[in-house]
């Protein structure tokens, strides 16, 4: 690990000021950043410890909705009474991720910033990784790409400086995408709110950029709109072992039902792209339809219509289609009722 100076921030303004310096990074839970520093993937010259900022509140909005402080730990968020009863999709996604120890450390803001688990990104002995070393190529596109993307990837060949087939590893992000979260950020001069769909990037021509957050901005909160899917929500995670593993694919499915008909839907896929994969066309096709296999299969088809598989991950296309149908089916049966089936 490269040497760095450590500073503890006590107020957001001080943190933002210190974080704006070249080579500085914010330290929250550290579960991803410290790990990547050990691997030599990240090498900040200054760590600005923001864990003592007062960004740990979960506050109900009188108009409906909720504001979650950036430093709320994943375990506390999942178990908050408001979240587990009104936003069970988010509780389920959080509790599907990592381990109890890591969920006690990891924060809401940090989880948004979690970097890909692509083996070739994490292992610096592979010279080709456009995300780690811009312009160096992509070792994964023709390598062991089992956990990699089937949607939204940039594929111009292994030696091209834009190619990237990495995925976003977060479970929380998939639920937040389906719930239509917004992200509040503060910079030295201004504050702004970023819709969830615009926060994470697809690789495009700049695979080294994960998000639209500017280098001098600090995430201060995530807001959720009024709850629509409290009664009918399911987070499906398919992985190589039943706990403590990253998703091969995951589906966050929320339904608002009126009798047997779908009034509105929130639907996002994880493990398939560099950002949670949401297609409002798939959600719209469900509206007004009976909650059943026909509508669910049509939505799955729309979500996966542009999917492209590679040597080791082509199985994900069919797995994701069936996963969407299964998650929507279980969601339609009720948040807890469906799960006992």
């Amino acid at each position, binding site marked *: 690990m490269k*040497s760095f100076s450590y500073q503890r921030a006590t107020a957001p303004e001080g943190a933002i000021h210190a974080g704006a310096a070249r080579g500085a990074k914010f330290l929250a839970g550290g579960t991803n950043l410290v790990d990547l520093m*050990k691997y030599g993937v990240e090498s900040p010259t200054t760590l600005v410890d923001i864990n003592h900022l007062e960004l740990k509140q979960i506050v109900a909005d009188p108009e409906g909705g909720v504001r979650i402080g950036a430093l709320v730990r994943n375990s506390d968020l*999942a178990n908050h009474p408001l979240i587990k009863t009104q936003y*069970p999709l988010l509780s389920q996604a959080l509790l599907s991720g990592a381990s*109890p120890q890591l969920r006690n450390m990891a924060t809401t803001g940090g989880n948004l910033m979690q970097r890909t688990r692509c083996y070739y990104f994490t292992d610096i002995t592979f010279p080709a990784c456009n995300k780690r070393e811009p312009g160096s190529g992509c070792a994964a596109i023709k390598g062991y790409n089992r956990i990699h993307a089937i949607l939204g990837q940039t594929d111009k060949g292994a030696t091209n400086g834009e190619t990237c087939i990495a995925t976003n590893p977060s479970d929380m992000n998939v639920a937040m995408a389906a719930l239509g979260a917004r992200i509040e950020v503060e910079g030295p001069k201004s504050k702004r709110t970023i819709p969830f769909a615009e926060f994470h990037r697809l690789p495009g021509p700049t695979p080294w950029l994960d998000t639209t957050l500017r280098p001098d901005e600090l995430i201060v909160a995530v807001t959720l709109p009024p709850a629509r899917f409290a009664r009918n929500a399911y987070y499906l995670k398919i992985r190589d072992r039943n706990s403590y593993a990253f998703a091969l694919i995951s589906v966050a499915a929320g339904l608002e039902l009126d009798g047997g008909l779908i009034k509105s839907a929130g639907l996002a896929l994880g493990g398939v792209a560099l950002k949670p994969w949401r297609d409002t066309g798939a959600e719209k096709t469900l509206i007004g339809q009976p909650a059943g296999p026909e509508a669910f299969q049509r939505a799955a088809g729309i979500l996966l219509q542009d999917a492209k598989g590679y040597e080791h991950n082509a199985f994900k296309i069919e797995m994701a289609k069936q996963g969407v149908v299964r998650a929507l089916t279980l969601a339609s049966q009720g948040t807890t009722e469906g799960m006992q089936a």
Partner: protein
Amino acid sequence: MSVPLDTEPEDEEFEQEKRQLEKNGLHFELSRRRFMQTAGVISAGIAVGLPNVAAAEAPSNTQAITLKVNGQSKALSLDTRTSLLDALRESMELTGSKKGCDHGQCGACTVLIDGRRVNSCLTLAFAAEGSEITTIEGLAKNSDPKDASELHPMQAAFLEHDGYQCGYCTPGQICSAVAAVEEHSRGALSIVSFHTGKTEHPEITDDEIKERMSGNICRCGAYPNIVAAVRAVAGASA
């Protein structure tokens, strides 16, 4: 490796860089290029053996720190890079917490910070300053390792149920289990709670225990006995 000869313009550049670094309070930082030069000198001077590259690359950034572990405060001087795990093991003679993977994947390093279980390998020592840290050594009422008369109930249960084979993962397993029982007692949920429809004070079934202990890996495969130990303590406190 040879030392670059075109040092004159670089020296000017280096001086500028150094002034900038000093302005930012980073007195010891070296540029990448300067590191290559230094490393070149070192490896030229040592015919056999590995130079201490980490030291040559960036001299340590050592600062004073006070850590409170098992109720006792200790003043130390540590490199900012030191993990809490290394601070405990290397600087505080608390070698109960174990280094398994050192990447937050195995749970052998699990300790409690302000009562919450965390991976001490991914916790920087400086980030833990000001918190109450509890390690396996702090669980028993009696700190004498040869006196097993006043063990923590979870330690006693691991003994009773033979919850280990080689014992390397055991301190992490026990610290994790202590927190798991505490989390359950205050109604915390796991994904199994949702999957079984028990989202109000779930019973501590074996499936719940397995899920709640999944952050601790045991290569010997003592899992059935670990589950039995946790079940015994959780059942007694329910």
